[in-house]
């Protein structure tokens, strides 16, 4: 196994990238591009993503992790990011990896990363397979939850009236708003607001995994309904729930070993068939 850290030339600037490769002698089973989640969720998930990427490389997958514009160690500030720029970054990462690795392409998205992965899969010619970690179904709902951080700060501080309305008005007037230390541009908010997890590219397959805190619980009703809809439309898609912590939002950095195992198994089975 090897790990390369480098900057991928992009527009504007460059993107920080990590490439995990299997042993040189080994045939690469698939080329995987990781699409990270949003803002603080990305920080909370960094460890899980790194552990999973290493585990994938150890079993024969080439994995490219890229920090999107304004995130992590890539160019720009968060406030420079737009939804369209992030889509372009994911597409750039896919093209770069496919030029280097001749293997089937997988997009591995997490949370809002699934929305991006799904949209890019529809733009790329050829088959794209999708691995989803706790996908966000509605960008609108996610945006609402993100803006709510500001409301929550006011609740903890004592008051909360009218905060949400003020934020929405500012965005509608083309102003950026600051939420929990992140500058959110109208271009990012607008793209996220319109993003919806719709039926993907027909030629690929979907491995959809949710994490649930209760050992006996299945997928959330909303996710199960969407998945059933896709299957009915002929999409090759499988869903499952694993037991573990919601590591992308827990107060402390946590790990979810069941998710790591389930992902490896799902991808190995998919590649074998």
């Amino acid at each position, binding site marked *: 196994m090897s790990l390369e850290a480098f900057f991928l030339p992009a527009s504007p600037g460059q993107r920080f990238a990590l490439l995990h490769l299997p042993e040189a002698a080994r045939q690469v089973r698939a080329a995987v591009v990781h699409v990270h989640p949003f803002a603080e969720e990305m920080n909370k998930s960094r460890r899980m993503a790194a552990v999973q990427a290493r585990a994938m490389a150890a079993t024969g997958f080439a994995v490219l992790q890229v920090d999107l514009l304004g995130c992590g160690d890539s160019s720009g500030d968060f406030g420079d990011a737009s939804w369209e720029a992030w889509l372009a970054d994911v597409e750039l990462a896919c093209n770069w990896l496919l030029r280097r690795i001749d293997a089937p392409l997988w997009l591995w998205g997490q949370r809002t990363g699934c929305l991006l992965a799904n949209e890019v899969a529809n733009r790329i010619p050829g088959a794209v397979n999708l691995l989803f970690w706790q996908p966000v179904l509605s960008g609108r709902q996610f945006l609402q939850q993100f803006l*709510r951080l500001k409301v929550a700060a006011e609740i903890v501080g004592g008051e909360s009236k009218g905060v949400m309305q003020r934020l929405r008005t500012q965005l509608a007037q083309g102003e950026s708003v600051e939420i929990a230390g992140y500058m959110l541009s109208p271009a990012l908010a607008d793209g996220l607001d319109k993003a919806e997890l719709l039926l993907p590219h027909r030629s690929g397959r979907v491995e959809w995994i949710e994490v649930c805190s209760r050992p006996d619980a299945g997928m959330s009703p909303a996710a199960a309904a969407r998945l059933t809809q896709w299957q009915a439309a002929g999409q090759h898609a499988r869903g499952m729930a694993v037991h573990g912590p919601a590591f992308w939002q827990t107060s402390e950095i946590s790990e979810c070993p069941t998710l790591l195992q389930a992902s490896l198994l799902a991808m190995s089975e998919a590649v074998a068939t």
Partner: protein
Amino acid sequence: MDIRGEVVAILDEVLSLKGRASGFSLDTPLLGALPELDSMAVVALITSLEERFAFVVDDDELDGSVFASLSTLIDFVQAKLNV
């Protein structure tokens, strides 16, 4: 549905309480009493409740009184489910 059990499990998980939440009584104070319950955690809590119980919270419904104690939080969830 065991609403109290679900709410306690979500509290424990989101706030990384490592099982402490299972010892909470109905009048255990939350906001202001649990240092883990900061603004980030309040949002994570609402989000988890929305996703688990499949309801949508309007931000006008939210103020500190919802998170005052375990019983006020359970009452809030119960009221949302009855709508």
